[in-house]
């Protein structure tokens, strides 16, 4: 049973087994690292996707006033609002009366003044509408600029979050990989080392049961 050849074979097998255990350990660690890395990347990706969805929503909302019928409608609304505000501050016909006539004015003169005031009220109204239409462009432009700035603020915050998440994500990934690693098992090395010792011992004759007969040197004569 414990002949040198058997022990050499057992030693070799133990050495191979030990090396196999070590390589399995390394392979397991490698697999764990890949899984940990994938999981960390997936978690980060999910976060980034959520932020990206928020950004897209804000951007779509910002883009909306520039699409379809809305630009024209918004301009009309701005012009209408400005025209109403400007025309609303125009003087009344009653305020314009009495600048050229007295109570004793002949009817024809009074009628003439009334007509003059009515005509003037119309031109004032027309001027107000023109001024409102003109300033409506500026009002809409400035309103658009403020909306853009507002969405830039929000997108800036989301971008900042995404950047920070990416920075932390890299560290998280590295830590996940580190934490997924197992310390190498001592059994592999022990087995391999023991096997080698066993093989070497067999070679050296540690396991010879009956040593070869020792030659005797006697006198032949």
């Amino acid at each position: 049973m414990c002949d040198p050849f058997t022990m050499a074979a057992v030693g070799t097998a133990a050495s191979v087994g030990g090396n196999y255990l070590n390589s399995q350990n390394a392979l397991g660690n490698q697999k764990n690292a890949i899984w940990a890395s994938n999981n960390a990347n997936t978690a980060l990706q999910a976060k980034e996707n959520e932020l990206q969805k928020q950004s897209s929503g804000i951007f779509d909302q910002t883009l909306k006033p520039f699409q379809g019928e809305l630009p024209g409608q918004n301009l009309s609304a701005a012009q209408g609002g400005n025209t109403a505000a400007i025309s609303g501050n125009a003087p009344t016909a009653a305020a314009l009366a009495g600048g050229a006539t007295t109570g004793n004015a002949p009817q024809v003169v009074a009628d003439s003044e009334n007509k003059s005031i009515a005509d003037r009220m119309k031109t004032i109204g027309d001027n107000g509408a023109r001024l409102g239409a003109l300033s409506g462009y500026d009002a809409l432009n400035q309103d658009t600029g403020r909306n853009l700035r507002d969405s830039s603020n929000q997108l800036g915050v989301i971008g900042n979050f995404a950047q920070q998440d990416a920075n932390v994500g890299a560290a998280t990934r590295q830590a996940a990989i580190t934490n997924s690693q197992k310390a190498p098992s001592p059994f592999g090395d022990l087995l391999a080392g023991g096997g080698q010792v066993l093989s070497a011992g067999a070679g050296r004759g540690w396991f010879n049961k009956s040593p070869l007969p020792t030659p005797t040197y006697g006198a032949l004569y």
Partner: protein
Amino acid sequence: MCLSQPKLPQDNSAQIAQQQNDQRQAQIKEGQGNIDTAFSKFDQPYFDNYTKTYEDNYNPQVDDQYNLAKQKEKYNFARAGVLDSTPAIFGADQLNKDYGNKRQQIASDALGATNDLKNNVANQKSQLYSQNLSAADPTLAASNATASAGTLSSQPQYSALGDLFSGLVNGTNAYMAGQNRSLPPGYATAFAPGGGIPTGSGSGRVVG
């Protein structure tokens, strides 16, 4: 026992970083909420009120100057003896035109000033958002927002209106004076260039 597999120490650095990041993001969101709350008073009614306040400041000045000019012009018409006449109606209409334009210009200026105010508010808010990101400190963001919101209303300078109608009244006055000095059609002054003693036949005769 001593051959048992050794355990590696746990790397908690990422967990700590993640916690700090979550905390920072929560602080930024809280800071944003504080900024939005502080600026919520700058709504459309606030700006509408500003527009009205602007008009209320300048309208009485225009009205006062118009009424004064109208009265002066009416005196001028009376002195010229043209009250209740077509020239007076024409003169009054020119004054009314200027008055209408000025009133509407006030409204237009009010809208422009309101837009400026909206832009200032948006700028301040934008700066605070930026500061909030850097500081990630909601308490600082809130105090800055309150301070900014408080100082916004004291920026523009409002000058009094100049004399709006005197040029027109003086012009009308000069026109009426000129009308008074002019001779009726068919008469010419002997001293005007190219003028001379009227010629032709008449019913008068020179005696002696």
